[in-house]
């Protein structure tokens, strides 16, 4: 194998076949992919969830993960936020010529590990190589299919007055971990991205209660943006308490230094759940028993008045509005 990806790897010739066979087929070994037909063919029945996403994070390797792990986690998490169990993934690589083969191998191996943990299979894919400068090292596009268990009805529009708002752990870890590696900004931190597949956490939560009203992962735009989306979609207000929202000391310090508000910093392994008050403790307990929900906490509740608004009680006992993220706080973190 060549030590760098060349334009020829994407031209459909011998080098391309070598890349597929020695790289992807071996890593993602499964019968649907191995057929190498133009499309993967399979049977499914039930209510399905279908999602797509693209990943352009810079740098492509960051503390706690890389673009491959991020692509799988992001996609299966979107499925999980509908309550779906992730089954199949598609993966398209857009590679800038000159990407070291070793880096690609490392990313493919991260994809394999993350998909394995999530219980999903990569069953179709594509590779394109573009001229230097036409992409930034590597972009990944994905799609995912999952199946929704009987009795589950989760949507951003389902929140109702009296419901409790649960957050699965500390916020801002991913955004700050990626930012710490940026050229011109790099600062030293022990912090790692929280990037993780949340399917198992959601499955445990659904075992505790099928009545979960909303689930959403606060990725770009952070917790503040997610809560605003839910408040608007459900035409309710959401009231949270600043002191209940877990934020690591390192994230707080980095945010102070850079002038960010952790409420707007991205996460890749956290979720917000809105559940009926009577089920809140059960769901919280189930979350805390899962590795990815150990830091879960009830951070607030849903109210009827001021629909569409998110209000936070500050540490001084006063309250303020929390608006959506305006513009671009952190470029390309996912």
């Amino acid at each position, binding site marked *: 194998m060549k030590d760098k990806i060349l334009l020829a790897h994407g031209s459909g010739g011998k080098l391309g076949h070598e890349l597929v066979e020695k790289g992807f087929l071996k890593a993602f070994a499964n019968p649907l992919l191995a057929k190498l037909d133009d499309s993967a063919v399979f049977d499914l029945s039930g209510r399905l969830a279908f999602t797509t996403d693209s990943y352009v994070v810079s740098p492509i390797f960051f503390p706690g993960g890389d673009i491959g792990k991020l692509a799988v986690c992001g996609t299966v998490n979107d499925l999980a936020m509908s309550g779906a169990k992730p089954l199949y993934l598609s993966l398209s690589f857009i590679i800038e010529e000159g990407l070291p083969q070793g880096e690609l191998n490392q990313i493919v191996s991260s994809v394999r590990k993350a998909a394995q943990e999530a219980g999903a299979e990569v069953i179709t894919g594509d590779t394109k190589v573009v001229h230097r400068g036409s992409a930034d090292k590597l972009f990944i596009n994905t799609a995912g299919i999952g199946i929704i268990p009987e009795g589950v009805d989760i949507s951003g529009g389902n929140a109702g007055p009296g419901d409790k708002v649960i957050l699965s752990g500390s916020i801002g870890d991913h955004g700050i971990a990626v930012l710490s590696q940026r050229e*011109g900004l790099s600062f030293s931190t022990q912090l790692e991205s929280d990037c993780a597949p949340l399917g198992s956490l959601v499955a445990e939560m659904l075992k505790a209660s099928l009545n979960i009203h909303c689930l959403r992962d606060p990725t770009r735009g952070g917790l503040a943006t997610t809560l605003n989306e839910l408040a608007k979609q459900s035409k309710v207000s959401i009231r949270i308490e600043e002191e209940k929202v877990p934020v690591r*000391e390192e994230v*707080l310090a980095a945010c102070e230094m850079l002038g960010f508000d952790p409420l707007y910093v991205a996460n890749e392994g956290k979720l917000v759940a809105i559940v009926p008050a009577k089920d809140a403790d059960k769901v919280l307990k189930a979350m805390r028993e899962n590795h990815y929900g150990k830091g879960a906490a009830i951070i607030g509740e849903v109210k009827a*008045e001021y629909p569409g*608004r998110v209000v936070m009680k*500050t540490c*001084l006992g006063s*309250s303020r*509005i929390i608006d959506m993220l*305006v513009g671009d706080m952190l470029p390309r973190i996912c």
Partner: protein
Amino acid sequence: MKFITEFRSSELAEGLISQIHRKSKTSARFMEFCGGHTVTIFRYGIRRVLPSTIDMVSGPGCPICVTANADLDKAIALAQIPEVIIATFGDMLKVPGSHSSLQEVKANGADVRMVYSTMDALKIAEDNPGKSVVFLGIGFETTAPTIAASILQAEENGIKNYYVLSLHKLCPPVIRAILDSGEVKLHGLICPGHVSAIIGSHPWEFIAQDYGIPCVVSGFEPLDILQCVNMLVAQIENGESKVEIAYRRGVRPEGNQQALKLMEEVFETCPAEWRGIGEVPDSGLKVRKEYQPFDAEVAFDIDPGSPYEPEGCICGDILRGVKTPLDCWLFGKVCTPESPVGPCMVSSEGSCSAYYLYGGDFEG
């Protein structure tokens, strides 16, 4: 000590708030000069926990907000000169000048780069020897020393394609101008923390002595502000007017001598135009003759045309503390962070942005 969570403790806050309520008998209006303080005050809802005797107004301490359109136009014109790279702190990108913004000219092909430090700008100059790199020197006494240091570094390393457009402004002279105008009656001043870290607390003495107004230098956490208000209230109730420092972990009375020396070496004072306030003598910094090769004003022939102020925008009145964003009919309707009309809505330290983002008008 971690320096953050301790200064956000709700128990300590409760204690300070009740002390303020107990002490405060006389009606008083305090101005927080600094935009950073404005943000803390809104982010933590501090106005709502203070007794009705205390009225708070925001001052002109947001460097981007007070930059006159004529100066913004210069920066935008520079960006459009071929082979010029503009290096700037990020907040400047979206600020509308008379006809355009740096963000817009960047989209049209100008080379405008966001940096986090002046030394990054210097590196861009080193990496692009065929181009001219202009750093937009916008800020108060806080940023001026590092920009002075970059000029000295450029000289030492023989970097000949690095320039600074110095639009720096100095805080004590503009406070004197505001007090002399008599437009706002103030009974206390929350002095800027980071500016004071450089200049110390002595430069505020004239406010306490000549105008009889209590001054307290504050930090940027909610407890800092509450402590500062508490000290101002104490001075008022005791009939005193002196300069005190509530931000002892950051500020010494004599300031940072090394930083002041750097500033003095590279810059000299000059009159400066402040948005909404007009020309204030000795309130600007220009590059000294000895360092003229690094002065963008001298190196480039800039003709941005005559400035134009957006109709209806009252940023100027807001910066003087005469009006609040809620007095502006554009606020929240025409002027929002997504499509700002005036600079106070763009800068993260601007009053309009703080009112908008943190719901300054929200009573729920």
